[in-house]
Protein backbone atom coordinates (compact mmCIF):
# COMPACT_ATOMS: atom_id res chain seq x y z
CA UNK A 1 0.00 0.00 0.00
CA UNK A 2 2.77 2.37 0.87
CA UNK A 3 4.55 2.04 -2.41
CA UNK A 4 1.30 2.77 -4.18
CA UNK A 5 0.94 6.03 -2.32
CA UNK A 6 4.58 6.71 -3.03
CA UNK A 7 4.00 6.23 -6.72
CA UNK A 8 0.98 8.49 -6.69
CA UNK A 9 3.02 11.22 -5.10
CA UNK A 10 5.65 10.86 -7.82
CA UNK A 11 2.97 11.38 -10.43
CA UNK A 12 1.60 14.47 -8.74
CA UNK A 13 5.05 15.88 -8.21
CA UNK A 14 6.06 15.58 -11.85
CA UNK A 15 3.03 16.07 -14.10
CA UNK A 16 5.15 15.50 -17.16
CA UNK A 17 5.34 11.86 -16.14
CA UNK A 18 1.59 11.61 -16.54
CA UNK A 19 1.98 12.73 -20.10
CA UNK A 20 4.60 10.09 -20.67
CA UNK A 21 2.34 7.37 -19.30
CA UNK A 22 -0.54 8.69 -21.37
CA UNK A 23 1.51 8.63 -24.56
CA UNK A 24 2.77 5.15 -23.84
CA UNK A 25 -0.76 4.03 -23.08
CA UNK A 26 -2.10 5.38 -26.35
CA UNK A 27 0.73 3.85 -28.33
CA UNK A 28 0.23 0.44 -26.76
CA UNK A 29 -3.54 0.85 -26.85
CA UNK A 30 -3.46 1.04 -30.63
CA UNK A 31 -2.25 -2.54 -30.78
CA UNK A 32 -4.91 -3.60 -28.28
CA UNK A 33 -7.55 -1.84 -30.35
CA UNK A 34 -6.43 -3.63 -33.50
CA UNK A 35 -6.52 -7.06 -31.89
CA UNK A 36 -9.79 -6.30 -30.13
CA UNK A 37 -11.33 -5.42 -33.46
CA UNK A 38 -10.41 -8.84 -34.79
CA UNK A 39 -11.94 -10.51 -31.76
CA UNK A 40 -15.13 -8.47 -32.11
CA UNK A 41 -15.25 -9.38 -35.78
CA UNK A 42 -15.21 -13.13 -35.22
CA UNK A 43 -17.60 -12.72 -32.31
CA UNK A 44 -20.07 -10.64 -34.24
CA UNK A 45 -20.02 -12.66 -37.44
CA UNK A 46 -19.80 -16.23 -36.15
CA UNK A 47 -20.74 -15.84 -32.50
CA UNK A 48 -17.47 -17.51 -31.57
CA UNK A 49 -15.68 -16.05 -28.58
CA UNK A 50 -12.11 -16.85 -29.47
CA UNK A 51 -10.28 -17.58 -26.22
CA UNK A 52 -7.17 -18.32 -28.26
CA UNK A 53 -6.91 -14.74 -29.57
CA UNK A 54 -4.03 -13.87 -27.28
CA UNK A 55 -2.21 -17.04 -28.22
CA UNK A 56 -2.58 -16.26 -31.92
CA UNK A 57 -0.94 -12.95 -31.08
CA UNK A 58 1.91 -14.75 -29.32
CA UNK A 59 2.35 -16.95 -32.36
CA UNK A 60 2.71 -13.88 -34.51
CA UNK A 61 5.16 -12.47 -32.02
CA UNK A 62 7.30 -15.58 -31.97
CA UNK A 63 7.38 -15.73 -35.76
CA UNK A 64 8.66 -12.16 -35.75
CA UNK A 65 11.20 -12.88 -33.07
CA UNK A 66 12.42 -15.93 -34.97
CA UNK A 67 12.95 -13.77 -38.03
CA UNK A 68 15.19 -11.56 -35.96
CA UNK A 69 17.16 -14.56 -34.77
CA UNK A 70 17.76 -15.65 -38.34
CA UNK A 71 19.15 -12.35 -39.38
CA UNK A 72 16.07 -10.93 -41.03
CA UNK A 73 14.90 -7.51 -39.87
CA UNK A 74 11.99 -8.28 -37.56
CA UNK A 75 10.05 -5.37 -39.03
CA UNK A 76 9.28 -7.70 -41.91
CA UNK A 77 7.41 -9.76 -39.38
CA UNK A 78 4.55 -7.29 -39.68
CA UNK A 79 4.08 -8.51 -43.23
CA UNK A 80 5.07 -12.16 -42.85
CA UNK A 81 3.34 -13.10 -39.61
CA UNK A 82 -0.17 -12.19 -40.86
CA UNK A 83 0.28 -14.41 -43.89
CA UNK A 84 1.46 -17.38 -41.86
CA UNK A 85 -1.21 -16.83 -39.23
CA UNK A 86 -3.92 -16.61 -41.87
CA UNK A 87 -2.87 -20.01 -43.18
CA UNK A 88 -2.80 -21.38 -39.63
CA UNK A 89 -6.19 -19.83 -39.01
CA UNK A 90 -7.57 -21.58 -42.04
CA UNK A 91 -6.41 -24.95 -40.82
CA UNK A 92 -7.87 -24.31 -37.36
CA UNK A 93 -11.11 -23.16 -38.92
CA UNK A 94 -11.53 -26.17 -41.18
CA UNK A 95 -10.59 -28.72 -38.56
CA UNK A 96 -12.27 -27.32 -35.52
CA UNK A 97 -14.14 -24.05 -35.65
CA UNK A 98 -16.48 -24.77 -38.53
CA UNK A 99 -17.75 -27.79 -36.61
CA UNK A 100 -18.63 -25.85 -33.50
CA UNK A 101 -20.21 -22.72 -34.94
CA UNK A 102 -23.65 -24.20 -34.97
CA UNK A 103 -23.43 -25.68 -31.51
CA UNK A 104 -23.99 -23.99 -28.18
CA UNK A 105 -21.70 -21.23 -27.06
CA UNK A 106 -19.86 -23.16 -24.37
CA UNK A 107 -18.75 -25.64 -27.01
CA UNK A 108 -17.05 -23.00 -29.11
CA UNK A 109 -15.58 -21.39 -26.02
CA UNK A 110 -14.09 -24.63 -24.77
CA UNK A 111 -12.86 -25.56 -28.25
CA UNK A 112 -10.96 -22.29 -28.59
CA UNK A 113 -9.69 -22.69 -25.06
CA UNK A 114 -8.33 -26.10 -26.03
CA UNK A 115 -6.65 -24.54 -29.04
CA UNK A 116 -5.18 -21.89 -26.75
CA UNK A 117 -3.63 -24.56 -24.56
CA UNK A 118 -2.21 -26.42 -27.53
CA UNK A 119 -0.57 -23.24 -28.83
CA UNK A 120 0.72 -22.13 -25.42
CA UNK A 121 2.25 -25.43 -24.55
CA UNK A 122 3.72 -25.95 -28.01
CA UNK A 123 5.34 -22.52 -27.90
CA UNK A 124 6.68 -23.36 -24.46
CA UNK A 125 8.23 -26.56 -25.70
CA UNK A 126 9.69 -25.10 -28.87
CA UNK A 127 10.92 -21.74 -27.60
CA UNK A 128 11.27 -22.21 -23.89
CA UNK A 129 9.59 -20.27 -21.09
CA UNK A 130 11.76 -17.15 -21.23
CA UNK A 131 10.42 -13.79 -22.23
CA UNK A 132 11.69 -12.62 -25.58
CA UNK A 133 11.45 -9.50 -27.63
CA UNK A 134 12.46 -8.61 -31.14
CA UNK A 135 14.94 -5.82 -31.65
CA UNK A 136 14.50 -3.77 -34.78
CA UNK A 137 17.39 -1.53 -33.90
CA UNK A 138 15.31 1.60 -33.86
CA UNK A 139 16.23 4.66 -31.79
CA UNK A 140 14.84 5.67 -28.45
CA UNK A 141 14.60 9.35 -27.60
CA UNK A 142 14.60 11.00 -24.22
CA UNK A 143 12.37 14.02 -24.17
CA UNK A 144 11.40 16.66 -21.62
CA UNK A 145 14.58 16.42 -19.65
CA UNK A 146 14.62 12.64 -19.46
CA UNK A 147 11.14 12.34 -17.95
CA UNK A 148 9.49 11.00 -21.08
CA UNK A 149 10.86 8.22 -23.18
CA UNK A 150 9.73 8.13 -26.76
CA UNK A 151 10.75 4.93 -28.37
CA UNK A 152 10.68 4.71 -32.13
CA UNK A 153 9.49 1.10 -31.98
CA UNK A 154 6.43 2.24 -30.09
CA UNK A 155 5.76 5.07 -32.51
CA UNK A 156 6.23 2.77 -35.47
CA UNK A 157 4.01 0.21 -33.78
CA UNK A 158 1.33 2.83 -33.28
CA UNK A 159 1.54 4.02 -36.87
CA UNK A 160 1.42 0.50 -38.26
CA UNK A 161 -1.48 -0.47 -36.00
CA UNK A 162 -3.46 2.56 -37.12
CA UNK A 163 -2.63 1.87 -40.74
CA UNK A 164 -3.67 -1.73 -40.49
CA UNK A 165 -6.88 -0.85 -38.68
CA UNK A 166 -7.70 1.70 -41.33
CA UNK A 167 -6.97 -0.82 -44.07
CA UNK A 168 -9.24 -3.41 -42.48
CA UNK A 169 -12.02 -0.90 -41.97
CA UNK A 170 -11.80 0.32 -45.55
CA UNK A 171 -11.82 -3.27 -46.71
CA UNK A 172 -14.93 -4.02 -44.69
CA UNK A 173 -16.71 -0.97 -46.06
CA UNK A 174 -15.80 -1.14 -49.72
CA UNK A 175 -14.98 -4.64 -50.84
CA UNK A 176 -17.57 -7.24 -51.81
CA UNK A 177 -16.27 -9.69 -49.25
CA UNK A 178 -16.37 -6.99 -46.61
CA UNK A 179 -20.00 -6.30 -47.38
CA UNK A 180 -20.75 -10.00 -47.43
CA UNK A 181 -19.22 -10.27 -43.97
CA UNK A 182 -21.30 -7.45 -42.61
CA UNK A 183 -24.45 -8.92 -44.13
CA UNK A 184 -23.74 -12.31 -42.62
CA UNK A 185 -23.09 -10.71 -39.26
CA UNK A 186 -26.49 -9.08 -39.32
CA UNK A 187 -28.49 -12.08 -40.43
CA UNK A 188 -26.82 -15.24 -41.66
CA UNK A 189 -29.96 -16.84 -43.02
CA UNK A 190 -30.93 -13.76 -44.98
CA UNK A 191 -27.43 -13.57 -46.36
CA UNK A 192 -27.64 -17.16 -47.54
CA UNK A 193 -30.96 -16.48 -49.20
CA UNK A 194 -29.34 -13.60 -51.06
CA UNK A 195 -26.72 -15.96 -52.43
CA UNK A 196 -23.86 -15.22 -50.10
CA UNK A 197 -21.74 -18.26 -49.37
CA UNK A 198 -21.72 -17.99 -45.60
CA UNK A 199 -19.24 -20.85 -45.26
CA UNK A 200 -16.70 -18.85 -47.24
CA UNK A 201 -17.51 -15.75 -45.26
CA UNK A 202 -16.92 -17.52 -41.95
CA UNK A 203 -13.65 -19.01 -43.15
CA UNK A 204 -12.48 -15.68 -44.49
CA UNK A 205 -13.44 -13.84 -41.32
CA UNK A 206 -11.57 -16.29 -39.16
CA UNK A 207 -8.50 -16.07 -41.35
CA UNK A 208 -8.71 -12.30 -41.39
CA UNK A 209 -8.80 -12.27 -37.62
CA UNK A 210 -5.83 -14.63 -37.51
CA UNK A 211 -3.95 -12.28 -39.83
CA UNK A 212 -4.84 -9.32 -37.62
CA UNK A 213 -3.51 -11.26 -34.65
CA UNK A 214 -0.36 -12.03 -36.57
CA UNK A 215 0.22 -8.36 -37.27
CA UNK A 216 -0.60 -7.39 -33.71
CA UNK A 217 1.73 -10.09 -32.47
CA UNK A 218 4.55 -8.81 -34.65
CA UNK A 219 4.03 -5.36 -33.18
CA UNK A 220 3.92 -6.77 -29.66
CA UNK A 221 7.23 -8.53 -30.21
CA UNK A 222 8.79 -5.32 -31.48
CA UNK A 223 7.31 -3.00 -28.91
CA UNK A 224 6.95 -5.13 -25.83
CA UNK A 225 7.77 -8.80 -25.32
CA UNK A 226 6.43 -12.30 -25.87
CA UNK A 227 6.26 -15.34 -23.64
CA UNK A 228 4.38 -18.58 -24.23
CA UNK A 229 1.87 -18.03 -21.42
CA UNK A 230 1.32 -14.33 -21.98
CA UNK A 231 -1.42 -15.20 -24.44
CA UNK A 232 -4.04 -15.74 -21.76
CA UNK A 233 -3.45 -12.26 -20.38
CA UNK A 234 -4.00 -10.79 -23.84
CA UNK A 235 -7.11 -12.88 -24.41
CA UNK A 236 -8.65 -11.63 -21.19
CA UNK A 237 -7.57 -8.09 -21.89
CA UNK A 238 -9.17 -8.11 -25.33
CA UNK A 239 -12.26 -9.78 -23.98
CA UNK A 240 -12.60 -6.98 -21.43
CA UNK A 241 -12.29 -4.39 -24.19
CA UNK A 242 -14.91 -5.98 -26.40
CA UNK A 243 -17.31 -6.65 -23.53
CA UNK A 244 -16.99 -3.11 -22.24
CA UNK A 245 -17.57 -1.56 -25.64
CA UNK A 246 -20.19 -3.89 -27.05
CA UNK A 247 -19.70 -5.93 -30.20
CA UNK A 248 -21.42 -3.79 -32.80
CA UNK A 249 -19.77 -0.67 -31.52
CA UNK A 250 -16.61 -0.30 -33.60
CA UNK A 251 -15.55 3.16 -32.47
CA UNK A 252 -16.27 2.03 -28.93
CA UNK A 253 -13.99 -0.96 -29.30
CA UNK A 254 -11.16 1.22 -30.59
CA UNK A 255 -11.70 3.80 -27.88
CA UNK A 256 -11.80 1.07 -25.25
CA UNK A 257 -8.59 -0.33 -26.67
CA UNK A 258 -6.84 2.98 -26.15
CA UNK A 259 -8.45 3.33 -22.76
CA UNK A 260 -7.17 -0.09 -21.77
CA UNK A 261 -3.67 0.82 -22.84
CA UNK A 262 -3.68 4.01 -20.80
CA UNK A 263 -5.28 2.29 -17.82
CA UNK A 264 -2.65 -0.42 -17.84
CA UNK A 265 0.20 2.04 -18.10
CA UNK A 266 -1.03 3.99 -15.10
CA UNK A 267 -1.99 0.86 -13.23
CA UNK A 268 1.35 -0.73 -13.89
CA UNK A 269 3.16 2.37 -12.70
CA UNK A 270 1.12 2.76 -9.53
CA UNK A 271 0.85 -0.85 -8.49
CA UNK A 272 3.96 -2.42 -9.91
CA UNK A 273 4.45 -4.90 -12.68
CA UNK A 274 3.61 -8.02 -10.65
CA UNK A 275 0.04 -6.86 -10.44
CA UNK A 276 -0.42 -6.75 -14.17
CA UNK A 277 -2.39 -9.94 -14.55
CA UNK A 278 -4.32 -9.36 -11.35
CA UNK A 279 -5.29 -5.91 -12.60
CA UNK A 280 -6.57 -7.27 -15.88
CA UNK A 281 -8.59 -10.00 -14.23
CA UNK A 282 -10.09 -7.53 -11.79
CA UNK A 283 -11.03 -5.38 -14.76
CA UNK A 284 -12.69 -8.42 -16.30
CA UNK A 285 -14.79 -9.05 -13.22
CA UNK A 286 -15.54 -5.34 -13.04
CA UNK A 287 -16.73 -5.17 -16.62
CA UNK A 288 -18.88 -8.27 -16.19
CA UNK A 289 -20.37 -6.87 -13.01
CA UNK A 290 -21.09 -3.59 -14.77
CA UNK A 291 -22.73 -5.39 -17.67
CA UNK A 292 -24.85 -7.35 -15.25
CA UNK A 293 -25.91 -4.21 -13.41
CA UNK A 294 -26.88 -2.69 -16.73
CA UNK A 295 -29.03 -5.68 -17.58
CA UNK A 296 -30.57 -5.77 -14.13
CA UNK A 297 -32.22 -2.50 -15.01
CA UNK A 298 -33.93 -4.21 -17.90
CA UNK A 299 -34.95 -7.17 -15.76
CA UNK A 300 -32.86 -9.62 -17.79
CA UNK A 301 -29.62 -11.55 -17.67
CA UNK A 302 -26.46 -11.08 -19.70
CA UNK A 303 -26.58 -13.60 -22.54
Amino acid at each position, binding site marked *: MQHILGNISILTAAPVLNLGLLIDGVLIGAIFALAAYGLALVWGVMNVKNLAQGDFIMLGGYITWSLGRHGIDPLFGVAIAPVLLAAFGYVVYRLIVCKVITRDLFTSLLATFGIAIVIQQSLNLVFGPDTQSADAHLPVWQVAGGMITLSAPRLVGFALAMLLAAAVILFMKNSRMGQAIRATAQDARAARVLGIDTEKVYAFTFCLNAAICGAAGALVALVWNVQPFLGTTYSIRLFVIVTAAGIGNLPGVIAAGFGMGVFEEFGGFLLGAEFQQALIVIMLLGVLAYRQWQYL*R*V*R*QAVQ
Partner: protein
Amino acid sequence: MSEPIIELHDVSKAYGGVIANRAVSLTVERGSITGLIGPNGSGKTTLFNSIVGYHPINSGSIRFDGREISQLRVQEIARLGLLRTFQTTRIYGKMDCMHNMLISIPHRKARYFDMFARERPEVVERAEQLLAFVGLYEKRFLRAGSLSFGQQKLLEFAMALMNEPTVLLLDEPTAGINPTLINGLLDRLKRANAEFGITLFIIEHNMRVIMNTASKIYCMAHGELLAEGPPAEIQRDRRVIEAYLGEH
Protein backbone atom coordinates in the same frame (compact mmCIF):
# COMPACT_ATOMS: atom_id res chain seq x y z
CA MET B 1 -67.24 -11.62 -11.74
CA SER B 2 -66.87 -8.24 -13.31
CA GLU B 3 -64.07 -6.74 -11.29
CA PRO B 4 -60.92 -6.28 -13.29
CA ILE B 5 -58.09 -8.67 -12.50
CA ILE B 6 -55.67 -6.94 -14.87
CA GLU B 7 -55.70 -3.20 -15.49
CA LEU B 8 -53.43 -1.39 -17.91
CA HIS B 9 -53.29 2.41 -17.92
CA ASP B 10 -51.43 4.24 -20.67
CA VAL B 11 -48.76 1.60 -21.02
CA SER B 12 -46.03 2.57 -23.44
CA LYS B 13 -42.99 0.63 -24.53
CA ALA B 14 -40.36 1.61 -27.03
CA TYR B 15 -37.36 -0.30 -28.32
CA GLY B 16 -34.59 1.98 -29.50
CA GLY B 17 -36.55 4.19 -31.85
CA VAL B 18 -39.48 1.89 -32.47
CA ILE B 19 -42.60 2.48 -30.39
CA ALA B 20 -44.07 -0.97 -29.86
CA ASN B 21 -46.88 0.05 -27.51
CA ARG B 22 -48.33 3.51 -27.26
CA ALA B 23 -50.55 4.49 -24.34
CA VAL B 24 -52.45 1.22 -24.21
CA SER B 25 -55.21 1.01 -21.64
CA LEU B 26 -57.35 -2.06 -21.13
CA THR B 27 -58.90 -4.23 -18.45
CA VAL B 28 -59.38 -7.96 -18.18
CA GLU B 29 -62.28 -9.08 -16.03
CA ARG B 30 -61.82 -11.78 -13.45
CA GLY B 31 -63.03 -15.15 -14.66
CA SER B 32 -63.48 -14.05 -18.25
CA ILE B 33 -61.94 -15.12 -21.51
CA THR B 34 -60.64 -11.97 -23.18
CA GLY B 35 -59.08 -11.80 -26.61
CA LEU B 36 -56.32 -9.65 -28.09
CA ILE B 37 -56.17 -9.48 -31.83
CA GLY B 38 -54.42 -7.38 -34.41
CA PRO B 39 -52.27 -7.71 -37.52
CA ASN B 40 -48.67 -8.82 -37.26
CA GLY B 41 -46.43 -6.21 -35.72
CA SER B 42 -49.20 -4.45 -33.84
CA GLY B 43 -47.45 -4.96 -30.52
CA LYS B 44 -49.51 -7.74 -28.96
CA THR B 45 -46.65 -9.94 -27.77
CA THR B 46 -44.77 -6.87 -26.56
CA LEU B 47 -47.78 -5.99 -24.44
CA PHE B 48 -47.85 -9.50 -22.99
CA ASN B 49 -44.14 -9.29 -22.29
CA SER B 50 -44.66 -6.00 -20.47
CA ILE B 51 -47.44 -7.44 -18.34
CA VAL B 52 -45.47 -10.48 -17.19
CA GLY B 53 -42.37 -8.48 -16.42
CA TYR B 54 -40.18 -9.63 -19.26
CA HIS B 55 -39.00 -6.04 -19.83
CA PRO B 56 -39.61 -2.70 -18.17
CA ILE B 57 -42.20 -0.33 -19.58
CA ASN B 58 -41.44 3.26 -20.45
CA SER B 59 -44.54 4.67 -18.82
CA GLY B 60 -47.95 3.72 -17.54
CA SER B 61 -49.27 1.40 -14.88
CA ILE B 62 -50.06 -2.29 -14.80
CA ARG B 63 -52.16 -3.60 -11.96
CA PHE B 64 -52.83 -7.22 -11.16
CA ASP B 65 -55.53 -7.95 -8.63
CA GLY B 66 -55.30 -4.34 -7.53
CA ARG B 67 -51.55 -4.42 -7.09
CA GLU B 68 -49.01 -2.49 -9.15
CA ILE B 69 -46.69 -4.98 -10.85
CA SER B 70 -44.84 -2.93 -13.46
CA GLN B 71 -41.67 -2.87 -11.37
CA LEU B 72 -41.69 -6.53 -10.40
CA ARG B 73 -39.64 -9.24 -12.00
CA VAL B 74 -40.89 -12.24 -13.93
CA GLN B 75 -40.59 -14.76 -11.10
CA GLU B 76 -42.36 -12.50 -8.63
CA ILE B 77 -45.25 -11.87 -10.99
CA ALA B 78 -45.51 -15.59 -11.76
CA ARG B 79 -45.66 -16.37 -8.07
CA LEU B 80 -48.53 -13.93 -7.70
CA GLY B 81 -50.51 -16.15 -10.05
CA LEU B 82 -50.04 -14.47 -13.41
CA LEU B 83 -48.63 -16.91 -15.94
CA ARG B 84 -48.02 -16.88 -19.64
CA THR B 85 -47.40 -19.44 -22.35
CA PHE B 86 -44.96 -18.66 -25.12
CA GLN B 87 -45.53 -18.24 -28.81
CA THR B 88 -42.66 -20.65 -29.46
CA THR B 89 -43.89 -23.22 -26.92
CA ARG B 90 -41.28 -23.61 -24.23
CA ILE B 91 -40.99 -26.78 -22.22
CA TYR B 92 -38.08 -28.52 -20.55
CA GLY B 93 -36.89 -30.62 -23.46
CA LYS B 94 -34.50 -33.05 -21.86
CA MET B 95 -36.80 -34.05 -19.01
CA ASP B 96 -39.78 -36.36 -19.27
CA CYS B 97 -43.34 -35.04 -19.16
CA MET B 98 -43.93 -36.06 -15.57
CA HIS B 99 -40.91 -34.09 -14.40
CA ASN B 100 -42.03 -31.15 -16.49
CA MET B 101 -45.26 -31.26 -14.57
CA LEU B 102 -43.73 -31.83 -11.16
CA ILE B 103 -41.48 -28.81 -11.40
CA SER B 104 -44.46 -26.70 -12.42
CA ILE B 105 -46.14 -26.81 -9.04
CA PRO B 106 -46.87 -23.39 -7.58
CA HIS B 107 -43.88 -21.96 -5.76
CA ARG B 108 -45.49 -19.09 -3.99
CA LYS B 109 -45.35 -20.66 -0.57
CA ALA B 110 -42.20 -22.68 -1.11
CA ARG B 111 -39.91 -22.59 1.89
CA TYR B 112 -36.19 -23.17 1.63
CA PHE B 113 -36.16 -26.84 2.57
CA ASP B 114 -39.05 -27.70 0.27
CA MET B 115 -36.33 -27.84 -2.35
CA PHE B 116 -35.17 -31.16 -0.99
CA ALA B 117 -38.53 -32.88 -0.74
CA ARG B 118 -39.77 -35.63 -2.93
CA GLU B 119 -43.18 -34.96 -4.36
CA ARG B 120 -46.15 -36.10 -2.32
CA PRO B 121 -48.45 -38.69 -3.92
CA GLU B 122 -51.26 -36.14 -4.18
CA VAL B 123 -49.08 -33.93 -6.31
CA VAL B 124 -48.06 -36.80 -8.55
CA GLU B 125 -51.69 -37.77 -8.88
CA ARG B 126 -52.67 -34.23 -9.82
CA ALA B 127 -49.94 -34.16 -12.45
CA GLU B 128 -51.24 -37.40 -13.91
CA GLN B 129 -54.79 -36.05 -13.93
CA LEU B 130 -53.76 -32.90 -15.74
CA LEU B 131 -51.75 -34.90 -18.26
CA ALA B 132 -54.82 -37.04 -18.85
CA PHE B 133 -56.85 -33.84 -19.19
CA VAL B 134 -54.71 -32.84 -22.16
CA GLY B 135 -54.44 -36.39 -23.48
CA LEU B 136 -50.78 -36.95 -22.71
CA TYR B 137 -51.08 -39.53 -19.93
CA GLU B 138 -49.68 -42.42 -21.98
CA LYS B 139 -46.68 -40.34 -22.99
CA ARG B 140 -45.86 -39.13 -19.54
CA PHE B 141 -42.45 -40.84 -19.32
CA LEU B 142 -41.29 -39.76 -22.75
CA ARG B 143 -38.76 -36.99 -23.11
CA ALA B 144 -40.65 -33.77 -23.61
CA GLY B 145 -38.37 -32.80 -26.47
CA SER B 146 -39.41 -35.85 -28.43
CA LEU B 147 -43.10 -34.93 -28.49
CA SER B 148 -44.65 -33.47 -31.58
CA PHE B 149 -45.19 -29.72 -31.74
CA GLY B 150 -48.90 -29.98 -30.97
CA GLN B 151 -48.22 -32.30 -28.05
CA GLN B 152 -45.65 -29.89 -26.66
CA LYS B 153 -48.22 -27.11 -26.77
CA LEU B 154 -50.59 -29.29 -24.80
CA LEU B 155 -47.83 -30.09 -22.31
CA GLU B 156 -47.07 -26.41 -21.87
CA PHE B 157 -50.75 -25.82 -21.22
CA ALA B 158 -50.91 -28.66 -18.69
CA MET B 159 -47.83 -27.27 -16.94
CA ALA B 160 -49.51 -23.89 -16.72
CA LEU B 161 -52.59 -25.47 -15.17
CA MET B 162 -50.37 -27.34 -12.72
CA ASN B 163 -49.13 -23.99 -11.46
CA GLU B 164 -52.67 -23.08 -10.31
CA PRO B 165 -52.60 -19.62 -11.85
CA THR B 166 -55.25 -16.97 -11.38
CA VAL B 167 -54.70 -15.59 -14.84
CA LEU B 168 -53.17 -17.24 -17.87
CA LEU B 169 -51.86 -15.21 -20.77
CA LEU B 170 -51.84 -17.39 -23.87
CA ASP B 171 -49.80 -16.27 -26.85
CA GLU B 172 -51.34 -17.77 -30.01
CA PRO B 173 -52.32 -21.11 -28.48
CA THR B 174 -53.64 -22.57 -31.72
CA ALA B 175 -50.76 -21.54 -33.96
CA GLY B 176 -49.15 -24.46 -35.73
CA ILE B 177 -51.74 -26.98 -34.58
CA ASN B 178 -53.50 -29.22 -37.04
CA PRO B 179 -56.92 -27.61 -37.65
CA THR B 180 -58.74 -30.82 -36.84
CA LEU B 181 -57.29 -30.76 -33.34
CA ILE B 182 -58.07 -27.14 -32.57
CA ASN B 183 -61.51 -28.03 -31.23
CA GLY B 184 -59.94 -30.31 -28.66
CA LEU B 185 -57.65 -27.55 -27.47
CA LEU B 186 -60.46 -24.99 -27.37
CA ASP B 187 -62.60 -27.35 -25.39
CA ARG B 188 -59.88 -27.68 -22.81
CA LEU B 189 -59.36 -23.92 -22.65
CA LYS B 190 -63.01 -23.38 -21.96
CA ARG B 191 -63.07 -26.12 -19.35
CA ALA B 192 -60.02 -24.66 -17.64
CA ASN B 193 -61.85 -21.34 -17.48
CA ALA B 194 -65.17 -22.80 -16.33
CA GLU B 195 -64.00 -25.57 -14.00
CA PHE B 196 -60.78 -24.13 -12.58
CA GLY B 197 -61.90 -20.52 -12.69
CA ILE B 198 -58.79 -19.36 -14.51
CA THR B 199 -59.06 -16.03 -16.28
CA LEU B 200 -57.75 -16.28 -19.83
CA PHE B 201 -56.25 -13.48 -21.88
CA ILE B 202 -55.52 -14.79 -25.35
CA ILE B 203 -53.59 -13.44 -28.33
CA GLU B 204 -55.05 -15.10 -31.39
CA HIS B 205 -54.83 -14.85 -35.14
CA ASN B 206 -57.48 -17.47 -35.82
CA MET B 207 -60.69 -15.40 -35.97
CA ARG B 208 -63.02 -18.37 -35.74
CA VAL B 209 -61.33 -19.47 -32.55
CA ILE B 210 -61.28 -16.16 -30.77
CA MET B 211 -64.76 -15.02 -31.80
CA ASN B 212 -66.23 -18.24 -30.44
CA THR B 213 -64.26 -18.29 -27.23
CA ALA B 214 -63.85 -14.77 -25.91
CA SER B 215 -66.49 -12.64 -24.28
CA LYS B 216 -64.60 -9.41 -24.95
CA ILE B 217 -61.99 -8.62 -27.56
CA TYR B 218 -59.38 -5.89 -27.87
CA CYS B 219 -57.90 -5.06 -31.24
CA MET B 220 -54.49 -3.46 -31.64
CA ALA B 221 -52.79 -1.91 -34.63
CA HIS B 222 -49.50 -0.04 -34.95
CA GLY B 223 -48.89 -0.27 -31.23
CA GLU B 224 -52.14 1.35 -30.24
CA LEU B 225 -55.49 0.09 -29.07
CA LEU B 226 -57.84 0.31 -32.02
CA ALA B 227 -61.15 -1.05 -30.83
CA GLU B 228 -62.73 -3.05 -28.06
CA GLY B 229 -65.97 -4.83 -27.48
CA PRO B 230 -67.84 -8.12 -27.63
CA PRO B 231 -67.04 -10.38 -30.63
CA ALA B 232 -70.14 -9.42 -32.58
CA GLU B 233 -69.25 -5.74 -32.52
CA ILE B 234 -65.57 -6.27 -33.26
CA GLN B 235 -66.38 -8.40 -36.25
CA ARG B 236 -68.39 -5.57 -37.75
CA ASP B 237 -66.04 -2.76 -36.71
CA ARG B 238 -64.79 -1.01 -39.84
CA ARG B 239 -61.49 0.00 -38.30
CA VAL B 240 -60.74 -3.61 -37.42
CA ILE B 241 -61.60 -4.80 -40.88
CA GLU B 242 -59.40 -2.15 -42.45
CA ALA B 243 -56.52 -2.97 -40.15
CA TYR B 244 -56.68 -6.53 -41.32
CA LEU B 245 -57.06 -5.80 -45.03
CA GLY B 246 -54.10 -7.35 -46.69
CA GLU B 247 -53.63 -9.70 -43.75
CA HIS B 248 -56.45 -12.18 -44.36
